[in-house]
């Protein structure tokens, strides 16, 4: 791959890996969600995200042209080859934490996909146009829950505020462009993260205000997921997710 293709490959991995890791995290709620409706909602959101991940990783595999399909990329890469944003690998915590993590990600994911629906790259445009309609439901649901918990009981308010405070330092990475983001934006292929950030801030401000939550002060932000520097959590996620295909590489349904 030349430099341009290499950057595009990186970009596709970021999109696919973020969806995949968050989808994997959410799947762990199956059988444990607080109410049946939430069990189904969480499962559906997870399914959407894993499906979107498959589309992104398929594009990455085609571009690389080394015979790696979406499964190969998902199951046979190690943590340092993953490019998901760090917020997606945060542990599930309590339900307030899961909801806040979802909301902060959805509020970024939605305008990101809106932008990518106008990409100069046909494959990216198609996957984004497909996914954005699903994510519209995700962001609506997570926004509603943030408001319900924030403006709910003292206990729910305290829990979701704690989640917001803890997750805040993982939000900067999503909205801060690096060389790859800049190069793809210039080529008309990638999203304009400055626009995405505007939209994100607008929504986060509006929803947290209605939820009577206090936004943390601007502070130091974690970085690194997009470049392959992860927290200790990713290894455990991959160990569980990759165990079967790595132990039995020829296993078929």
């Amino acid at each position, binding site marked *: 791959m030349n430099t341009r293709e290499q950057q595009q490959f990186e970009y596709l991995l970021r999109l696919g890996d973020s969806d995949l890791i968050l989808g994997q995290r959410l799947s762990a709620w199956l059988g444990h969600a607080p109410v049946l409706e939430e069990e189904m909602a969480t499962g559906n959101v997870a*399914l*959407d995200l894993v499906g979107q991940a*498959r589309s992104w990783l398929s594009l990455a595999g085609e571009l690389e042209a080394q015979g790696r399909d979406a499964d190969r990329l998902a199951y046979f890469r190690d943590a340092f080859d993953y490019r998901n944003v760090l917020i997606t690998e945060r542990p599930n915590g309590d339900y307030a934490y899961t909801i806040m993590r979802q909301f902060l990600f959805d509020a970024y994911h939605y305008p990101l996909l809106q932008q990518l629906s106008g990409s100069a790259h046909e494959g990216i445009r*198609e996957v984004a*146009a497909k*996914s954005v*309609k699903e994510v519209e439901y995700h962001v*609506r649901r997570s926004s509603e829950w943030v408001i319900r918990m924030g403006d709910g009981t003292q206990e729910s308010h305290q829990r979701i505020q704690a989640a917001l405070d803890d997750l805040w330092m993982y939000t900067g990475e999503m909205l801060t462009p690096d060389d790859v983001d800049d190069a793809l934006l210039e080529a008309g292929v990638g999203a304009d993260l400055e626009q995405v950030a505007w939209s994100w801030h607008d*929504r986060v401000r509006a929803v947290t205000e209605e939820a009577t939550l206090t936004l943390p002060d601007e502070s130091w932000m974690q970085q690194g997921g997009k470049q392959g520097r992860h927290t200790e959590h990713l290894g455990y996620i991959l160990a569980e997710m990759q165990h079967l295909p790595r132990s039995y590489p020829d296993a078929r349904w």
Partner: protein
Amino acid sequence: MVASEAQIREWLTQVTDPEIPVLTIEDLGILRDVRHGKDGVTVTITPTYSGCPAMMAIRMEIVRALREQGVERVRVEEVLSPAWTTDWLSQDGRAKLLAYGIAPPAGKAQRKSALFGEPDTVACPQCGSERTSRTSEFGSTACKAMYRCEDCLEPFDYFKCI
């Protein structure tokens, strides 16, 4: 024997959505194209949702249905564009959903999305009452939401707009 494309489409009415078995893939609007060339039959379908777990089963069913009619070389291709919306659901499909107890999508898919877009009125498939309320945005499958009728008190699935 070379079957016409119309004949192949007819045979494909055997293939239904495994999650909503009253709908054929044509009713659902996911059957995009049927082509009969030198190298066999190519059937093009599109997923409803990115993670639709039924796609694999549908592909297998397409191959099986055509093999049964003596078509040996069948290729099933998936396309994403133009993205499927509930507007692709046929009028027939909507009627079948209603008869099956699932409220068909209300209104057009391309509506203005608001931060808290209120869905259109969804009528109860059992008694027709419009006094219904949503119990969850997400239902037993990706394409459905859960509702309850305030008049006959029956819970029901709503095939949501996307």
